[in-house]
């Protein structure tokens, strides 16, 4: 309860300062919109369905891209974790590649795939694949060795061993990496959509810029934050909690 009160005070204060600055009219309204201007833009966006469509398109793209990353990343991570050669070669490359913002792949992707969905997907995959791979590798290494031995001892080998033992055993260790991968995927998507004018939240945001409608821009920003937060705070939190309960690990508070 106390926490809720603190949050309420904080956000009320934030809105107050915002309103005050807007009311002082230091900057013209098209540069610094009022909170209710943004509220109206949000309402209008949902009213004419443009936000709903944008959300649907963006979510579809990020889910496809993220799914590809997770599947590829699992195998890559497993490979890197289980082979000394791959660890020394690929492992180093992957870590260094992580310092590259995924949007840097945009020009190449544009040449390879043309101005299409696939270009966006490629950028999303490049954004999140590395996090997932490194998380998977880390999870495999942190996972207690006993599970792999017990699995082999009970007759599991090859893919069976991976699917029924190694993967579930390392899950609690890779959730945080999966979460990070999601955050990267989401950011890469919005960036790519801002460059590629075809639906999606990023494009709606750029449209706001083109129309000099800062209320709409901020409205879309709020949407992007909200979706990112909901997926992170609801989907991944509950997944983590579920894993911790099921695995008998005490939840870290």
């Amino acid at each position, binding site marked *: 309860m106390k926490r809720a009160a603190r949050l309420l005070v904080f956000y009320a204060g934030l809105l107050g300062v915002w309103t005050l600055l807007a009311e002082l009219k230091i900057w013209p309204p098209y540069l610094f919109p009022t909170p209710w201007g943004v509220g109206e833009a949000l309402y209008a966006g949902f009213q004419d369905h443009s936000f709903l469509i944008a959300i649907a398109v963006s979510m579809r793209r990020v889910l496809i891209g993220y799914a590809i990353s997770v599947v590829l990343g699992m195998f890559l991570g497993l490979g890197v974790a289980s082979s000394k050669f791959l660890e020394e070669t690929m492992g180093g490359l992957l870590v260094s590649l992580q310092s590259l913002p995924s949007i840097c792949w945009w020009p190449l992707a544009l040449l390879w795939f043309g101005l299409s969905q696939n270009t966006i997907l490629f950028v999303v995959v490049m954004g999140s694949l590395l996090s997932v791979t490194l998380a998977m590798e880390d999870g495999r290494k942190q996972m207690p060795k*006993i599970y792999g031995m017990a699995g082999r001892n009970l007759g599991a080998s090859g893919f069976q061993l991976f699917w*029924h033992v190694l993967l*579930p055993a390392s899950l609690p260790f890779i959730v945080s990496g999966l979460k990070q991968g999601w955050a990267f995927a989401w950011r890469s998507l919005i960036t790519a959509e801002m460059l590629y004018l075809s639906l999606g939240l990023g494009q709606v945001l750029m449209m706001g810029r083109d129309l000099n409608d800062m209320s709409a821009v901020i409205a879309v920003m709020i949407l992007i934050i909200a979706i990112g937060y909901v997926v992170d705070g609801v989907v991944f939190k509950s997944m983590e909690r579920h894993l911790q309960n099921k*695995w*008998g690990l005490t939840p870290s508070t």
Partner: protein
Amino acid sequence: MSTNAHNLSAQFPIAVDHHSSVRADGSRGKAGLVTAPRPIRGISLAVPKVALSDICLSYRSQSGERLLALDHINLQVKPGEFLCIVGPSGCGKSTLLHLIAGLHQQTSGQILVDGKNVQGPGTDRILIFQELGLFPWLTVGQNVEFGMKMKGIGKAEREEKTQSYLRLVHLSQFKDSYTHQLSGGMRQRVALARALATEPDVLLMDEPFAALDAQTRDLLHDELERIWSETGRTIIFVTHNVREAIRLGDRVALLTFRPGRVKREFPVNLPRPRALEDVHVAHAAREILDELREEINRSLEVEFNVGVKPHVEIGAEQ
């Protein structure tokens, strides 16, 4: 293979002569107290279930020198026999079980199970780890059926066997619990049921009861002995507790400290069921303990780098 089997059957009577506790037909002397081990799958009792010949294991230490962990281990285990291996910590007794389970590879020497060379893990030999290695993401029932699932056994049969093995360890009503919801002793029994459910001929147990309180351990000793006599499995049981070894074993093999060698084998000629606090058990333990003490002192000298000889009482190692 046939020549191997032949050679071994020729060697085996010699081993039997050493350990007069067991008659050449493999049955235990105390008729009526224990079910005689039944021949499994018609294999002649003259062929040892598990035969270790000249097992050596060496590894490279961090400083780069080669260390010998196991030194020419020779042991033979008859079908249905309960062999206990004791030794100070660091003698490589757990490692030996890992080798038999096929989870690691010995540097030299041969491990034969039913006269066949061990190559990698197989469900004819199941190891119960000291840490158990139960899968926390599976329920008790799913843990027990895991091995059968890997073998591709159908769902109906799996369910049925899972039920019967859970009944065997008295855990039927915990089928849908997760392992972390159980007590240490119950987890032990889950591990036992999981191992038995794959129907191995040989059960390898690595200090399974070391972390349990005395009451739970006593109960599990009784249960293990009952299950052993009901199922006729061959058991190789590693422990550092001499009394436990005598409580359970047909024979006790004592390993030396670093490198691990078989120092001596002791037949246990006491009627079953035995109790840990039994005078005869204590008496038999005394003899083994005298020899074990030398090894423990040696290990203490190495590990603590001291020359003093700490006095080790009977049972002090428990």
